[in-house]
């Protein structure tokens, strides 16, 4: 197992207001709900927002399906093969290179590197080795040409094509029949809950038949359930777990950035054409912790009253909960940063500043988070 840093969790707290919308429906077609603090809340399931996050990845990294991040697939494969089959590096390199040959990956300028970055999870590399590890003794005896011919028909490409590695590293993968391909997720995403009490609203609609001119009345009638809410969204990523999953500490650090961006910016698409709920978060706070992930949902157990500006009050509550929790438990985070759109002169912005630091642009927040991740340490 490659763990180059101690336990590091990146907690993301997002306050996100949506206008009347139906982001995530139950089997009646109404927005999902849950009770918390004794009152009904609007809810978006963790699965729904994770899907939105993954779709954001796919949209913004069109090559993400198989291309990213390591030029050293051959080296990685060699290292793992040498370890698994107790081979010397030279022999392992010869076999690994042959196994990768049918993929036609362009070689890079440096020996053993590919021309472009490829993003693979270690479970995938292990799966490739699984394809021929039993015959290694025999393979060592073969000449270069025979070796290439022998490995040509193995489903190496198929194995490496399965899944989206960053996705898989972050969200995990479960393949019932092939436990070797299972990956434990590095992220944990909570169901989004409104910070306040919410009642389900029903939109009664009538649709007019344009061609029905000789009589009155609607062509069709129906109802659509909806509500509007300020959501508290929480996710945490274990950097150490992501490193293990990706077998590449640098890639894991980039993965944190991509996840932060995708989680903050993404929005489930449920009924988006009917409601156009395309909003950005009011507040994104990132907290890097060396001990444990801390959800601040308790800030909203007492529901925010709906008469006094829900988003700003929610931000103040979140900040107070964070400050109180740190003071109470004495567990100072390694880093806190925040990006918000509150009125800078408001008392709420002041509280948020006390708790999470100065307001930054989102790009600055992403940079700051990445800069404050623990440096990669080589561990023998």
């Amino acid at each position, binding site marked *: 197992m490659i763990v180059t840093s101690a*336990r590091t969790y990146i907690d993301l707290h997002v306050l996100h207001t949506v206008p009347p919308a139906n982001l995530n429906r139950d089997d009646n077609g109404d927005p*999902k709900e*849950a*009770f918390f603090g*004794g009152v009904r809340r609007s809810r978006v399931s963790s699965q729904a927002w994770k899907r939105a996050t993954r779709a954001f990845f796919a949209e913004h990294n069109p090559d993400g399906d198989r291309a990213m991040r390591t030029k050293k697939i051959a080296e990685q494969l060699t290292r793992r093969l040498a370890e698994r089959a107790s081979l010397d590096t030279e022999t392992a390199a010869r076999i690994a290179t042959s196994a990768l040959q049918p993929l036609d990956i362009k070689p890079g300028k440096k020996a053993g590197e590919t021309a472009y970055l490829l993003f693979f999870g270690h479970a995938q590399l292990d799966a490739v080795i699984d394809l021929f590890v039993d015959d290694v003794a025999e393979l060592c005896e073969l000449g270069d040409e025979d070796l290439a011919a022998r490995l040509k028909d193995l489903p190496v490409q198929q194995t490496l094509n399965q899944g989206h590695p960053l996705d898989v590293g972050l969200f995990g993968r479960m*393949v019932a029949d092939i436990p070797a391909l299972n990956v434990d997720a590095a992220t944990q995403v909570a169901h989004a809950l409104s910070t306040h009490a919410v009642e389900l609203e029903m939109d009664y609609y009538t649709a007019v038949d344009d061609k029905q001119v000789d009589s009155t009345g609607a062509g069709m009638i129906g109802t659509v359930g909806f509500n509007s809410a300020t959501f508290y969204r929480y996710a945490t990523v274990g950097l150490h777990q992501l490193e293990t999953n990706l077998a590449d500490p640098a890639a894991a650090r980039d993965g944190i950035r991509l996840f932060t961006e995708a989680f903050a910016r993404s929005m489930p698409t449920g009924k988006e054409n009917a409601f156009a709920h395309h909003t950005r978060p009011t507040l994104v706070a990132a907290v890097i912790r060396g001990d444990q992930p801390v*959800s601040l949902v308790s800030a909203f157990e007492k529901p925010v009253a709906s008469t006094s500006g829900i988003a700003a009050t929610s931000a103040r509550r979140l900040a107070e909960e964070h400050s109180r929790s740190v003071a109470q438990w004495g567990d100072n985070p390694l880093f806190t940063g925040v990006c918000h759109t509150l009125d800078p002169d408001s008392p709420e912005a002041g509280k948020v500043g006390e708790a999470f630091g100065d307001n930054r642009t989102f790009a600055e927040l992403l940079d700051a988070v990445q800069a404050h991740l623990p440096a990669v340490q080589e561990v023998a």
Partner: protein
Amino acid sequence: MSPETSPQSVLLLRLAGPMQSWGDRSSFNRRETRPEPTKSGLVGLLAAALGRPRGADLTDLAGLRCGVRVDQPGTVLRDYHTASDYRGVPLLQAGVSAKGVQKPTSPAKPTHVTHRFYLQDAVFVASLAGDPEFVASLADAVRRPAFPLALGRRSCTPTQPLVLDVRPGALEAELTSEPWHAARHARQVYRRRQGGTVAEVDLPATFDDEDGTDVVNDLPLSFNVRDRRYSTRRVRHTWLTVPTGETTVGGAAAASSHDPFALLGW
């Protein structure tokens, strides 16, 4: 090895969060929840904190004596859940091809429907008793977990504090002396029902007990993905009279008043 003879420590955990889910016989597309935390759920939480991989030995964790107190029962939430591939790729079937690759469903099936049940708005106090050194190491692990912790399901994040305390003592006594951890709104309902502030509240609890009257099938033997096994344990259900943490203000007299709406939680 009687648990009463050797010195024991008790780890008290507060299990609270908007949603929890403690399955004990879930399979396929209907994922139910028990009304209170299962031993397999607790062992799983501790194993995750310790960073044990799936399939690791669980004997020491399963050997802890466990007790669970219901501070706030919550209600059941049914979640209608669909899964599909956002790229529009058909879902995969369980079977694999000759090359060991999962085959797509045929005819292509784009959406998979499951029902997941959760407890919403619930609070429990769980306690685990065992060797003092081991129990102390568990408390440390929960404070610095290797894997993110969850209340039965990955998406059910716990709220802090999770670790209440580690105390020398007996399981049932420690669970009885620990004050009530109900939320503000639950306390309000209770106060209204009692006609004022009361010093004590009766809470249901379940303990591991070899002479118990009930048998539950949630003692984990292995969390190995390919070989998930459980055994049974005997439990005893009881009620504990627990301090509310509030002082009495003429509650006793008011408590005897007849309130038919109390049953409805009004």
